[in-house]
């Protein structure tokens, strides 16, 4: 065994390159900057492109152009930058442009605190687009997750042709940890499906039950159209309500193919538990410790750590909540994901523990809440 020592952000960058990322563009922002720094070391010497945009809007715009020209692209930012990405995120969703977007969250609102952590963007990542169509959000708990989930994020972006977010946190991104990076089992690398019959190619026509159109790159032998406007299968503006509805329904439904088998999570069910604790991100680490300590003290609770936040793994949550007297959701904000959990667990009391002061939620706070909250 030989391990290495690096930041979560560096692990994301290294995971991206393993996944085939060959185009990165970003704009400096704490606490995400070290992803850009690492990509700048990794990509240019190996023939890839790494650019610093004039602002966040440009950075993600570069990525969208490059992605449609066939490259695997990633950008990274924090809350203020995600806000600026918003119009381009809507574009990527509606026009099915694969891209991985890393949000190394910092304490908001607004410019907030550059060097303090939070998980305050969780609903924003889901709903910060016009049109409200679904996205995929993965949430790492530690450096190994940063590395592996980034590879999965690229695979998902390629498979479903949509933006995939990594909801990291300053407390993961800028924390250095040991990682056995050489011996981790790597997922198979996937790429978007190329149209097999270029003749008569329509950029948004769907020929399979995946609900995802085949791809041809801008710059290839067949002229290809991309548009942010409401379009039919041919990529031209349409006003036909039927065509619009078919397309919107498809976009809303295509992520349903992410079944329970494809959600990322850790579950620690306990036989005698009456409480299920649900958490994600860096808070999962305090929860793991609390889980271990309470079990040793004879007060076991079940623990579900979600690493796929969106789409909401509804069946998974319902499965582990079944028979519980209460469910406790712990997150580093003032109550965001708990709303999703409440919606899907009618009849089970759902309690909330959270804070948004730049400090980690501690194992003691969790134990205190469970025992006296």
């Amino acid at each position: 065994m030989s391990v290495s020592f690096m930041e979560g952000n560096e692990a994301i960058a290294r995971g991206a390159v393993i996944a085939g990322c060959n185009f990165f563009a970003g704009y400096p922002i704490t606490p995400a900057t070290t992803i850009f720094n690492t990509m700048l070391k990794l990509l240019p010497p190996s023939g890839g492109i790494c650019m610093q945009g004039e602002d966040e809007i440009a950075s993600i715009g570069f990525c969208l152009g490059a992605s449609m020209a066939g490259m695997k692209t990633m950008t990274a930012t924090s809350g203020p930058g995600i806000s600026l990405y918003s119009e381009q995120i809507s574009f990527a969703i509606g026009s099915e442009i694969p891209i991985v977007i890393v949000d190394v969250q910092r304490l908001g609102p607004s410019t907030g605190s550059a060097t303090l952590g939070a998980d305050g963007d969780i609903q924003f990542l889901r709903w910060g687009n016009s049109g409200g169509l679904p996205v995929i959000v993965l949430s790492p708990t530690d450096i190994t997750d940063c590395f592996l989930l980034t590879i999965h994020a690229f695979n998902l972006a390629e498979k479903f042709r949509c933006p995939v977010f990594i909801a990291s946190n300053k407390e993961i991104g800028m924390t250095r940890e040991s990682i056995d990076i050489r011996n981790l089992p790597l997922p198979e690398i996937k790429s978007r499906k190329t149209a097999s019959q270029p003749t008569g190619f329509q950029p948004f026509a769907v020929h399979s039950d995946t609900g995802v159109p085949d791809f041809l790159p801008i710059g290839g032998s067949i002229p290809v159209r991309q548009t942010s406007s409401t379009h039919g299968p041919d990529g031209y503006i349409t006003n036909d309500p039927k065509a619009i509805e078919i397309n919107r329904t498809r976009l809303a439904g295509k992520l349903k193919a992410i079944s329970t088998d494809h959600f990322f999570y850790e579950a620690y069910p306990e036989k005698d538990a009456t409480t299920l604790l649900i958490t994600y991100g860096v808070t999962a680490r305090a929860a793991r410790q609390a889980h271990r300590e309470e079990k040793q003290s004879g007060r076991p609770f079940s623990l579900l750590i979600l690493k796929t936040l969106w789409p909401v793994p509804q069946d998974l949550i319902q499965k582990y909540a079944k028979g519980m007297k209460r469910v406790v959701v712990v997150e580093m904000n003032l109550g965001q994901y708990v709303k999703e959990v409440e919606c899907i667990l009618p009849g089970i009391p759902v309690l909330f523990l959270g804070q948004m002061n730049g400090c980690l939620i501690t194992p003691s706070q969790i134990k205190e809440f469970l025992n006296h909250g």
Partner: protein
Amino acid sequence: MVSLLNQNRPPAFCPGCTHEKIVQMLDRSFQNMGLAGNRIAIISDIGCSGLFDTFFHTHAFHGLHGRALTYATGIKMARPELTVIATMGDGGLGIGGAHLLAACRRNLDITLLILNNFNFGMTGGQFSATTPMDAVVESGFLNQLENPIDISEVARSAGAEYVVKCSGYQPDLDKELEKAIRFPGFSVVDICGICTGRYVQKNRLTPKKIETLVSNHNHTISSTPRKEYYSHYKELSKNQPPAENPIPISPVFKPLQPTRQEIVILGSAGQRILSAGEILCLAGLTAGLNVSQKNEYNITVLTGPSITELILSPDPIDYTGIDTPSIILALSSEGVERRKYLFTNTTPDTIIIHEQNVKIPSCNASVLSVDFKGKGIKPKEWALASLAVLAGMNKVISLDMLQKAIELRFKEPICSKSIHLIRNMV
């Protein structure tokens, strides 16, 4: 060559709109150049200029208002062999001004056609960045308050090396477009025209007036253009050193303690606190421990406290916070001040090593005062020296672990100097 116009989608502009003439001229320039549709990408954004991509049989990318140049940049970097044309209106230029400035500075081989008709046509004739102050527009009196810009002048001062101002009515516009497309760098063609649907409803603007307007401007065409961005990028990329792989560290020592150890180093900028933290973690790795490091420092990095929080543990590290450290190394007053609360939680099992001149709050810990200054050790070496003191006590790390970490981290001559320092401390 055949026309690249899309026969199924003829131009759909208002009667008399200059844009239609420009579409025809652009097609003619493509024909003159012998370009096939699959060798061209037309990138457009919002407004009437955003319809351009639909009228051609080429690659096309239509995006958000003012952002055409951002997509064009990504496409050109991915497919440098393509002829990339971006079309933007004067409205898009206003909202996307930063992208224009950056494109001028960057000099990537894209041709920007500005379809300048002095107002927002599609939304009803509001004023844009180029609307004259005396024009009558749908923004009421507001355009009387803002000075219009001359986009050509702005592009020139931002470093664009090919800037021409044209009339959409000039008969040799196709030749002008061809020259701009052939220019090996970023080129701007500011094409002035008439918005028949909106602007000229209340303002007098004729092809003749546009001809006068355009003739007053000098063209900028560099005869010795600077390096084009993509080829320059490739040239510089080739000289970049290959990326270093993360250093693999195999365990060669046995851990000293069987339990999780939490260490906090409190110092100031310039004391190499974060480096010392890294060394301690690397030392932990040489004994097969799991390690984590969290840092805190001012955004103005050369001043203020510098703090590093370290965990070394035989078990996987879950919670990375430190509330009751086993070791505190106190090396500056402002560092101590920032983490004062840590001292209240100390017990006799806590070890504090401090420079004897750095005052610490009264506490229950076992305190070791060290006269680093008296030993002739400079403040920037105190952090490493305090690790040596810790290793000398066989707490958390051994001296061999520390030396191994230094060897992993530093090249000569710093490596030998550092080893000399720690050996002298013990």
